[in-house]
């Protein structure tokens, strides 16, 4: 992935705060979303604390249009979402050795309030989705 992630230019307004971090990375709280055309429709959730932590993310509707996570209201309270237009929905992607085996974590979607610039990885309750859902379906 070369040097695409070095010397990223961003402004204070681009920073999204994850107050609880991300499970496994509880101390990493500030991220930006980076779009690089050659990786589209994937985007990148890049931590800006200098640790080089980054996740490939994707809007799950792009590969699973019927994705319907049941998110409980109090799971969203701390994001202070007032209207649905504030919400960005992403899933974190694990890139595998065989590209077709790459998976998205549909059990733990990432919800971002783009107005308040806050984000959280939600863990769905009693969900039919897993952490390793294939994105490519054989036809």
């Amino acid at each position, binding site marked *: *992935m070369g040097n695409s992630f070095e010397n990223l230019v961003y402004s204070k307004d681009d920073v999204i705060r994850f*107050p*609880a971090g*991300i*499970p*496994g*990375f509880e101390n990493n709280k500030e991220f930006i979303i980076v779009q690089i055309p*050659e*990786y*589209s*429709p*994937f985007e990148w959730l890049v931590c800006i604390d200098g640790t080089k*932590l*980054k*996740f*490939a993310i*994707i809007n799950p509707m*792009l*590969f699973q249009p019927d994705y319907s996570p049941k998110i409980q209201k*109090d799971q969203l*309270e*701390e994001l202070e979402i007032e209207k649905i237009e504030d919400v960005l929905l992403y899933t*974190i*992607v*694990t*890139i*595998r*050795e*065989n*590209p*077709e085996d*790459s998976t998205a*974590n549909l*059990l*733990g979607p990432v919800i971002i309030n783009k107005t308040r610039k806050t984000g959280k*990885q939600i*863990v769905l309750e009693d969900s039919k989705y897993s*952490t*390793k859902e294939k*994105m*490519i*379906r054989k036809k």
Partner: protein
Amino acid sequence: MLILTRKISESIRIGDSIIIKVIELDNRHVKIGIEAPRTISVYREEVFERIQKENQAASDHPHGENIRNIADMIRKNKL
């Protein structure tokens, strides 16, 4: 580990803001109610561990270059 015995509908308080209540008991299951401030996330332990592990795997990128191929496939799938 602190171990306490509770009856149905009795609670345990942790600090001044978390209450854990035994709601229901049957053969092998316990139903537990949890009241906690919204800044405290509550998870089933094994689910939380699965998410943590997947995040770890997702952040490693040993095959990061493959993302171009997957991006291609998803773009084609859509067309």
